[in-house]
């Protein structure tokens, strides 16, 4: 069960907003946030990071394929090959998880990102019951950021 407080959820929201604002100059907005107790949102490409140390759980960011070439272009990256699409979503997830340590401290140990194409069951298996889902709209694309975080 998600143990996140409103202030802790805001840590992740702020990290996502900052990522798009700083790197692309195009602001992202939160279009929905909710406790995902029935179905977790997933899209075409996903970056997944697991938490350990004084916490357990995971975070994943899932983005539609159409968004990732736009994100790469905004970063000045001309190579929109499949490995770079996966890398883009992995780095987004890594940045959001890493930035969360400003609030949670170094007791929040984060793995290197695993990147997944498609709505693999591997994503469902990583997330325990009732994670928190934040849907962020950047340009015309919806990105799902799903956080499952609990103190040990």
């Amino acid at each position, binding site marked *: 069960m998600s143990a996140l407080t409103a202030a802790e959820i805001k840590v992740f929201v702020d990290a996502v907003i900052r990522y798009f604002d700083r790197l692309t100059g195009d602001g992202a907005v939160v279009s929905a946030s909710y406790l995902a107790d029935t179905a977790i949102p997933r899209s075409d490409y996903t970056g997944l990071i697991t938490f350990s140390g004084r916490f357990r759980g995971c975070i994943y960011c899932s983005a539609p394929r159409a968004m990732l070439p736009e994100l*790469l272009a905004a*970063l*000045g990256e001309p190579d929109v090959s499949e*490995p770079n699409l996966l890398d883009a979503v992995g780095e987004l997830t890594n940045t*959001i998880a890493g*930035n969360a*340590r400003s609030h949670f401290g*170094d007791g*929040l140990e984060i793995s*290197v990102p695993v990147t997944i194409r498609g709505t693999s069951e591997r994503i469902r298996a990583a997330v325990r019951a009732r994670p928190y889902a934040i849907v962020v709209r950047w340009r015309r694309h919806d990105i799902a950021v799903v956080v499952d975080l609990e103190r040990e």
Partner: protein
Amino acid sequence: MRLLVVDDSNIIRSRIARIALHPRLRGLHVVGLARNGVEAIDKAAATEPDVVTMDLTMPEMDGVACVAELMRSHPALRILVVSALSDKATAIEALKRGARGFLHKPFTDDQLVDALIEVAD
């Protein structure tokens, strides 16, 4: 000055290499790209860089361990940590091991240029 870029993200390695071409960084040129700490140690031995940008969360060998190892083998090296890890303890640990600066991801082009100038100065 010779720059080695260390990051497990291909996008970040490419981006840093592109930013290194900025006119304010004239005199700095990329001599190698590495995907983890083990590769970084090999490439540092092969290319003798003056400046390194170093990610922290990487497979094989993480950045903090790599900073310590590189400072043992190349004491004059100037290392700029470029990481998303935003807690103070991690930054302090990297600086204790010998890094000269710390830049948080996500960073703008100008922020990286400023940080590289400061570290290389």
